[in-house]
């Protein structure tokens, strides 16, 4: 294993590839958080009165809360008054109407990231709502989606154009009282995406958002709301990056998904925020509340996540299975390296009859990192014939890292069948030996084994993302993984 150790050492020196800042004009408001800031954000976004009310209610509630301490994470104290809560990279008063109006620097940034923002990428069939810092820069393919009646726009636009939908659904899955960060987000959220799929419509393309934190000392507080009406289908992709900075950046988002009768929503994330340098300096704090509700009968919600970035990841994409015969899935690969920390998992709350859920979680820890799976499977009194299968495996690549599992199983109905399995181990030396014997180098062998290990999850990603995710896995573990 001497050789393997060397690779693990190498990987701790791997640099963050996406670390660059874009020098474009950004309008940032004063640091600090008080009611005036909340009002100012609302004003800047020209929001209606009810929206401001919602923000203020959330803010007042947030003031009564304390940051929770239960996760298995070491979080340095966060000074919420030292953060600027709004940064607008589009200096022009009116939002850009075509590509030509978009700041060329901004487009270059997206080019570096390889986001298919431009029309030429129409062939790739992806509609992108790119969120840089806080304002949605441009939404592509909107026209062709509009024909089908699909609404895919920035959250602020949705507030203006479709207030009735936003009012009806916003906060219905993640209320502002939900938790500390949900309250904070509800008070100061800047922008995000809104998706509405009408009855019986199958979204013809993968919808995609790219989040990127750009300005210094700004938190990114976006909000995503997806509503799938009866018999509809949508697959939504979310990718995240942030430039390299010494300070920690805070990211506290909310994602809400409502799935109606027989509808299906697939939500995939590839999270690659800046993880900090090899000494654990800097990096993004990724504290996100993601929750969907399978409201209708036979509805289906699927979360897939590949988490390779962020100094601290703390999130539990969850499903409330309230519709009868509804199905929920959670597939996750979480990689931590250097001094990264992750406390992630899911909650499956079974309320309806004949509901089923699947959890597959694969954790990989290297360097000095700590990687925890935390999950809840709850079967309520009236949830007849609920079924859950959970599998969470951890792989340790190094003797200084940690892998932890904290599942909670609460069963209040005897017809439930719930299984949970977890294993923790390092890469089997026999497997490496077997590969070596056949002329495969140790590095390639580890690569093969790790990829095979994460395959169950990667396979669930849409094609374009699967390729990116595989690359990300290699970047994160380069040196130890081929």
């Amino acid at each position, binding site marked *: 294993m001497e050789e393997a150790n060397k690779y693990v050492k190498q990987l701790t020196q791997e640099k963050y590839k996406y670390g660059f800042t874009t020098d474009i004009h950004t309008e940032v408001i004063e640091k600090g958080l008080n009611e005036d800031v909340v009002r100012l954000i609302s004003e800047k976004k020209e929001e209606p009165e009810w929206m401001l009310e919602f923000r203020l209610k959330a803010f007042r509630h947030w003031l009564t809360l304390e940051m929770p301490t239960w996760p298995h994470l070491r979080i340095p104290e966060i000074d919420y008054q030292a953060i600027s809560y709004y940064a607008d990279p589009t200096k022009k008063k009116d939002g850009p109407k075509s590509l030509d109006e978009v700041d060329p620097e901004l487009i270059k940034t997206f080019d570096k990231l390889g986001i298919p923002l431009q029309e030429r990428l129409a062939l790739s069939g992806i509609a992108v709502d790119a969120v840089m810092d806080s304002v949605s820069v441009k939404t592509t393919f909107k026209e062709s989606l509009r024909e089908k009646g699909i609404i895919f726009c920035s959250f602020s636009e949705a507030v203006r154009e479709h207030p009735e939908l936003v009012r009806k659904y916003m906060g219905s899955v993640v209320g502002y009282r939900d938790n500390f960060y949900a309250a904070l987000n509800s008070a100061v959220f800047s922008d995000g995406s809104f998706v509405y799929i009408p009855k019986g419509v199958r979204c013809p393309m993968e919808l995609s958002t790219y989040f990127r934190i750009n300005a210094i000392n700004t938190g990114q507080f976006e909000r995503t709301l997806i509503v799938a009406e009866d018999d509809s289908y949508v697959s939504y992709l979310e990718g995240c990056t942030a430039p390299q900075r010494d300070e920690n950046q805070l990211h506290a988002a909310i994602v809400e998904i409502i799935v109606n009768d027989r509808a299906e929503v697939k939500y995939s994330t590839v999270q690659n925020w800046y993880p900090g340098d090899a000494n654990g300096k800097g990096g993004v704090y990724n504290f996100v509340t993601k929750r969907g509700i399978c409201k209708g009968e036979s509805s289906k919600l699927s979360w897939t996540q590949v988490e390779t970035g962020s100094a601290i990841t703390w999130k539990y994409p969850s499903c409330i299975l309230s519709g009868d015969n509804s199905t929920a899935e959670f597939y996750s690969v979480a990689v931590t390296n250097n001094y990264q920390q992750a406390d992630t998992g899911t909650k499956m709350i079974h309320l309806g009859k004949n509901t089923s859920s699947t959890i597959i979680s694969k954790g990989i820890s290297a360097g000095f990192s700590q990687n925890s799976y935390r999950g809840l499977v709850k079967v309520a009194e009236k949830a007849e014939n609920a079924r859950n299968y959970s599998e969470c495996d951890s792989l340790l690549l190094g003797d200084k*890292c940690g892998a932890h599992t904290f599942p909670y199983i609460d069963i209040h109905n005897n017809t439930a069948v719930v299984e949970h399995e977890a294993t923790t181990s390092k890469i089997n030396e026999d497997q490496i030996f077997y590969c070596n014997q056949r002329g495969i180098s140790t590095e390639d062998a580890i690569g093969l084994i790790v990829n095979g290990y994460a395959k169950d999850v990667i396979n669930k990603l849409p094609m374009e993302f699967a390729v990116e995710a595989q690359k990300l896995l290699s970047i994160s573990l380069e040196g130890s993984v081929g």
Partner: protein
Amino acid sequence: MNMKVEQQYITLFKESRDLLDNNSAPVMNKYRQEAFDNFERLGFPSKKVEEYKYTPVSKYFEQEYGLNLSRLDIPSKPRDLFSCDVPGMDSIQAFLVNDLFHQEAVKGLPKGVLLGSLKELAETHPELVEKYYAKIANHSKDAIVSFNTAFAQDGLLLYVPKNTIIEQPIQLINLLRSDVDLMSNRRILIVLEEGAQAKVLICNHTIDQVNFIQTGVTEVFVGANAQLDFYELEETHTQTVRFNNLTVHQQADSNVLLNNMTLHNGVTRNSTEVVLKGKGAHIDCHGMAVEDQNQHVDNTTLIDHTVAHCTSNELFKYVLDDHSVGAFTGMILVRPDAQQTNSQQTNRALCVTRDAKMYARPQLEIYADDVRCGHGATVGQLDETALFYMQARGISEREARLLLMFAFVNEVIDTISIDALKERLHTLVEQRFRGEVQKCSECSICK
């Protein structure tokens, strides 16, 4: 913090400090104040304390209980009251009435072995008790342990000297006996020196139909190469509340088997902490609970692998009927240097009725890479195909269900190393499942 419930005990402690001290041993008094301060600081754990999430504590302490602080000998003849012994088990018997060692010569012990009242042995062997008492049960962290350490006055000590083997199992029968609602704070100290071997069975029973609450702290030291089988069997009535904390420290190459069986009870929370301190130590930590009515059993375990080359194995099974509640928390902690650890944990629960509730929390916290750790937890019902298979072969549905349920818990019973006890438990569990009142011909509880 709302200290309303705690207040009556705080007052009691302050008012009866002299009474506590005078009827106890100096070694025990030494820790009293410190433990009490800790209790005052901690208060009874609320549901927000992660370890006590599933068992509310303060509500059970609200009621007024009598405490036998002046250590009056409750008139009883345990041998007459209780003879539900295990047939065919040739054992060394000793009785505890509430938390008091029943004075009666214990026969059949090898030379050098001490078994008796903690208070008295603390007077005759102060250096021994001094060395071990309150050393591993952490009264600064757990409020129940601090409560017990503040109020415990007596208890039981078992000391097995180096390389001494006690062939016969030691059966400790703990009877809860009182005419009024009673609180007792039981303290047990077990020390096995290097190479010693012993088998200990504690049977918990209630004699009187009054409300009982018992806090228990058991500290077990297992020396290098020593071997201990430790069984705790509970058959109390539904008005009994027990909070039991067991801490085991194991040295190199020691081998310990723990088995905690709850057949009948009111509310029980068993907290077990095993610290593997020497290389090559092995622990089997098992348990089962058969519950009905409103019974509540919460087993919380922590297996702490502090050094390399240790192995642990956990198996817990629950059968939940009526409105009963089962909870299991199992933490396996592998510290940074504990390489080559092999650890397995299994928790299975069978919910028989729709009102039964099960909470399971199997947890792994691992800081070493060259390990193999796994856990599995399932909650469910009997296998329909197995039931069908048996019915197709002429076994009635009821009988088929019973058979499958026996098979389910027998996995835990079969780990018992005392054959007679194993047989006895098979019978007890069968009676329990068949709904027959457990009756034996002789003893007065059963009459």
